[in-house]
Structure formats: C-alpha cells, structure tokens
C-alpha cells in the first residue's frame, strides 16, 4: 500500500494548461467517482485550485501508479498525456507526505505564507471524505497536514508582514496609529489604486473618509461608493489638517501637496502625526515633508521596498517551516508503520493457526479414534510449536516498529511468510 501524488502547479505548468485540467469545486464528486477505477478503488482526493491540480491516492501497487493518475487526467479532460506530462510531478511515500505538508503549510505557494491554501485543501478533503473516497490512511495524512500547517503558521512568522502594496500601507498606518477607527482618511485622486488602499483601510476600521478630485463629480462618485464625503481638490488647505492618513494618486504632473501645505496643516493639528501614502507617478507630495517631525511619507518605491523585505522575511521563515515539516513527516511515517504492525501480527498468527488446524485435521483423520487426552496433548504440542516459533519474530517486529527500520522488517515478514497472497 502506498501514498502517491501526481499533479502540476504554478511552478512549471503554464496557466492555460492548469485551466484546462481544472476541476470545479462544485462538481468534484463525479471525477472522484471516476478516479476510483484508476486507483483500484483505493483512497483518493482531488485538489484543484487556480495554482495547482493534484491527485492524491492510496494504492495497492506502486508500479504504474503515476502513469494511471496521469491517464485519468487525460481521459477525464480529453487532453493527450504528452501535452502535460513534462510539467507533472509524481511523489510517493515519504515524499508524497512531505509534498502534502508543504502545500497545506503554504510553503509551495506562489506567495509563500498566503492563508487561502489551507481552506482550499480542507474543502477538497471534506468533499472527498463526504463522497467516501477517503479511508484511514488519507484521513490521517490530511488531518495531520492541517495540524502541521497550523503549527508552521504559529511557530514561524511565515504569514506575517504584508506582501501587497496596499496592505503594506495599512500595516504602516498601524505602526503610527494604534486605533484606525477614530482616524480620518483623505483620498486624493479617484483612481483604482487609491480606491483599493482606501478599501483596505476601511476594512481595518477607518470610518471617516474624504475624497478629493480635480473634478468634483468623480470625487463624489467614489465617495458615495465608499460612504465618504467628496471635496473639491482646490480647497485642499481647508481640510488637509483633518486627515490623519492621506492617500494620493492623481495623474497630476506637478506636486499636489507642498511642504508649506503640510506645515500649516501640522500647526492646525497641534502636531498630531500625518501619514502620507504617495502612490502616484510622478509623485504628488513634496518628498521633503518626510523630514518634518510627526510626518511620515511613503512613496510607491518605499512601499515596494517594504513588500520586498517582507517577502524575504517570509522566505527565511519558510526554512524554519521546512524543518518542522521534516520532523512531522518522520513522525507520521513511524505512526503508519506502527499501525501496520498489529494487522501484520494478526495476519501471521491467523495463517499459522490455519496451517495448524489443517494439519491436525489430516493427522486425526489418519489416526482414527483417539482418547480425548491424547488428542488434547497433540493439539497442545502443535500450538506450542507455533507459539515458540513465532514468538521471537513478533517481539522483534514490535521492537523494530518503534524505530525507523520498522518498514523493512514488516516488508520482510510479509514477503517471507507470503502474507499478501
């Protein structure tokens, strides 16, 4: 019995191909049903997101396992295998578990540490489980994967620090202001980028919103969508001091906010800090205002730089995640091995018992009627031979199953006694 995974992801496969091989989450039951023929009825899970398509299986015979899973993809989607074969990766056993753990922990994601993948895998697994496509092995593997992902998320900082510009702006705002709820945001320029940043700020509690634009109509339009207030850009000096956070992204060729504007606003604000986010190119806000006390100015390059630094941090944290996963994979493998010991021992005993009964039957038939006590003595001797013969290997197997070499012993036992036949 082997765990296997075959799939393709954003790392190699082009998006056009991933699109064609995609399984819509709403209709996973049907492909799961069909996949059963390719896994000889073994356990299976289909994971399909916009970045990856993966088939997890628990199959009897490893030979051709990967080929069969690829055949399924080809047959189901009507795409020749040759078309996607170069992009496919196939892992089994330990590597398959490691792959699953890495995927769920978001170490294999396009943006390392993104939080969505866990929910996506959970859903894929839940669908497979409901469809009775999973059993004790994949259940255990996936449940463990979720626990590992949670561990990676809490024990490393893989999910911390914004990796998008607008979210980085929100994080910076929170470094300056404790509570965004009581703060006023001024959005200058009714562009897409400023709207996105404003929406992020609103979702983090900002309630007061002013929108300024050269044409008041567009300002009012965006303001009404964001439940703010539209104001004419020409009157900027009259309301600049009200803003704690200023997001600027106009298409203006010249500066929109000068140092003098900011200085007079600061005076009116009694030096309460202002956070300027200048995402316009060319820039809207005089870069020298950053030198003023209690003024913090980040332009698009600064934010980009912050995002890059954050990505680097995530990469470093990912290395810690890999170490956690390596230990967890080992633990799970050991657990699987131990799980196999008990059935193997039972199997062995049952086989010996069957042989004993057969041979005793033959012997008693040959000997004819025997006194009861002689019969009992012969039966006891047969049992005693079995027990003494099997005692040492069973004890040894149980001992070895605690260590890493357990699998070898188990395989040897199964082979030597032909337990799988």
């Amino acid at each position, binding site marked *: 019995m082997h765990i296997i995974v075959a799939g393709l992801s954003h790392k190699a496969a082009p998006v056009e191909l991933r699109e064609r091989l995609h399984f819509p989450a709403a209709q996973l039951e049907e492909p799961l049903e069909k996949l059963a023929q390719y896994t000889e009825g073994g356990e299976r899970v289909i994971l399909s997101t916009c970045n990856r398509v993966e088939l997890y299986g628990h199959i009897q015979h490893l030979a051709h396992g990967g080929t069969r899973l690829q055949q399924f993809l080809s047959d189901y989607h009507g795409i020749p295998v040759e078309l996607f074969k170069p992009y496919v990766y196939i892992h089994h056993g330990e590597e398959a578990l490691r792959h699953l753990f890495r995927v769920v922990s978001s170490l294999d994601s396009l943006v390392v540490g993104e939080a969505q993948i866990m929910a996506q895998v959970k859903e894929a697994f839940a669908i497979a489980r409901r469809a009775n496509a999973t059993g004790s092995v994949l259940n255990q593997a996936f449940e463990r994967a979720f626990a590992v992902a949670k561990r990676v998320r809490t024990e490393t900082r893989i999910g911390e620090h914004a990796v998008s510009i607008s979210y980085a702006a929100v994080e910076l705002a929170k470094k*300056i*202001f*404790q509570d965004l709820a009581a703060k006023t945001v001024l959005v200058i320029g009714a562009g897409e980028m400023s709207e996105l940043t404003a929406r992020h700020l609103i979702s983090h509690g900002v309630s007061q919103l002013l929108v300024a634009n050269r044409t008041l109509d567009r300002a009012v339009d965006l303001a009404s969508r964001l439940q703010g207030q539209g104001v004419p850009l020409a009157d900027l000096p009259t309301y600049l001091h009200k803003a704690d956070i200023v997001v600027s992204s106009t298409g203006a060729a010249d500066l929109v906010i000068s140092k003098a504007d900011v200085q007079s606003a600061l005076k009116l604000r009694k030096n*309460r800090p202002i956070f300027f986010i200048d995402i316009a190119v060319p820039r809207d806000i005089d870069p020298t205002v*950053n030198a003023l*006390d209690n003024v913090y100015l*980040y332009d698009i390059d600064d934010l980009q730089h912050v995002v890059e630094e954050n990505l680097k941090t995530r990469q470093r944290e990912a290395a810690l995640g890999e170490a956690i996963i390596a230990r967890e994979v080992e633990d799970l493998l050991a657990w699987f091995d131990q799980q196999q010991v008990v059935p193997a021992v039972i199997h062995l005993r049952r086989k010996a018992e069957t042989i004993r009964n057969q041979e005793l039957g033959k012997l008693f038939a040959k000997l004819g009627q025997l006194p009861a006590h002689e019969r009992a003595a012969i039966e006891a001797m047969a049992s005693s031979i079995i027990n003494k013969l099997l005692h040492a290997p069973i004890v040894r197997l149980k001992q070895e199953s605690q260590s890493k070499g357990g699998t070898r012993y188990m395989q040897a036992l199964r082979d030597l006694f032909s337990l799988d036949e």
Partner: protein
Amino acid sequence: MTGELVAQQVMADQSGLIAVESFRVMHVILDNLALFCYILSTLFHWLFMASRKRMLLLWALGAACVGFVVHTGYLSVEVSRAGSLFISEVHGATAFFSWTVMLVYLVAEALTRIRVLGSFLVPIALLALLMGLALPPDAALLVPPLTSFWLTTHIVLAFLGNAAFALTFCGGLMYLIQDRYLKAKQPGGFAARLPSLEILDRLNFWALAFGVPLLTQGLVTGAIWARYARGSFWIWERTTWPLIVMWGVYMLLFIGRWYLGWRGRRAAVAVMAGFCAVSLGYLLHALG
C-alpha cells in the same frame, strides 16, 4: 549580684546580636533573590523581544512578579529592622527606587499591555539595585532618619514620581526608535516589536500626568516637614535648588504637552532629557 546582671546584660546583647544577624542574613538573601529574579526577567524580556515566543514573555513576567514580591519582603524586613520605612543609606534609597520602578512597570504593563515595556523598565530597576550594591554600603545620605510622617510621605511620593518619569523615559526611547525606523522606511526588524507611535505617545503623556502631581505633592510634604523640623517651609541651599529646577522642568513639559501641542518626537526627546536631569537633581539633593 553584679555578676548576674552582667551575665544578663551579655545574654541580652547576644540575643540582640543574633536578632540583628538573622535580620542581616535574611535581608541579604531576599536582596540577592530579588536581584536574581530581575536579572532573569531582564534576560527573558530580551529573549522574548528577539524571538517573540510567548512562553518567554510568561517567564519574564513571572520572574518580575516573584522578584517584586521578594523585593517587597526585603523592604518590609528593612522597615522592621530600622523602625521606619526608609533608612538613610544609599543602599536603601536605591533599593526603594528600584521597587517603585517595578511597581510602576507592573501597573503600566497590566494597564497598557505593551509587552516590550519590561525590556526597558526591568533593566532600570535592576540597574538601581546594582548601583546600591556598587556604592559603599555605609555611604550615608544627608536625609535624617525618617521618624517624621511628613518626611516619609515626602520621600515616598517623590520616589513614585520619579519612577513615573522613568516610565516616560522608556516610552520616549521606544518612541524615538520607532520614529527613526519609520522615517528610514524600514518598518521591519526591531521596530516591528515596538508598539505604535500613538500608544507610546499616550503612554508618555499619562506617565507625565501621574508623575507631575506626585512630584508636586512630594515637594509640598517636604516643605511641611521642613517647617516642623527646621522652622521654615523653604531654605535656599545646595540640596533644595535642584528640586525646584526639576519640578520646573516637568511642569514645563506638562504644560507644553497640555496646551502647546508638544508631542511626538520632540516631546519624547524632552521627557528623556527631563528624566536624566531629574535623576541628577535627586543625586544632588540626596547626596548634598
């Protein structure tokens, strides 16, 4: 007869000596235990800052609490030994200052939940304790024995006031660090461990708002004591003018904050300078 009396006298002296000795041993043990706890707490706080593992914070807080309890016990032993809250030795003064800093720290930590506060304040308490050990143990202060109620009150309030200023010092320091990182466009790294500028600024304000009245009351009770003990509310001399100067410094800071909108970076620098000036003032006042 006389021999008996002498023997009795010797025995009494001996038991007195034993009592003094046991006090001394107890207070050395408690003193060192508190010191040990503060060292542990400082280390755990710094490790927590470096790794941000929650477990370390719990250890740091635990060590700080145990240290504070032991420290309180130590001061109680002192009081029962000397018969008053305070003894006129440098060691006692620094130990008491250290205690007030820990008190202010624990209260501020519980109220604000600024987790990195301990990384700054516990070392200050530790430093004060160590300073007391480094100075000659019998270096007497010009403070007379605290038998007077007014003098005791004066000193307790003034010390609490200064502990509050130690808090503003730490808040100011954290503010400057955070401000510097944000201005340099490097919000990651060390700055990521510090709280937001707004809450640090608020911390500075509230610590100042508590410290100024305490210091004022300390000054007033001191004047009342002076009236009883020395016949006049105020005597201009070497030991009193630093008090007035530092009180003036803090009143100025407070008024600037309250009315003139001094805040942010400049306010942080001002309170830090204020704390240094006041600490110096105390030394001048106490050592004469």
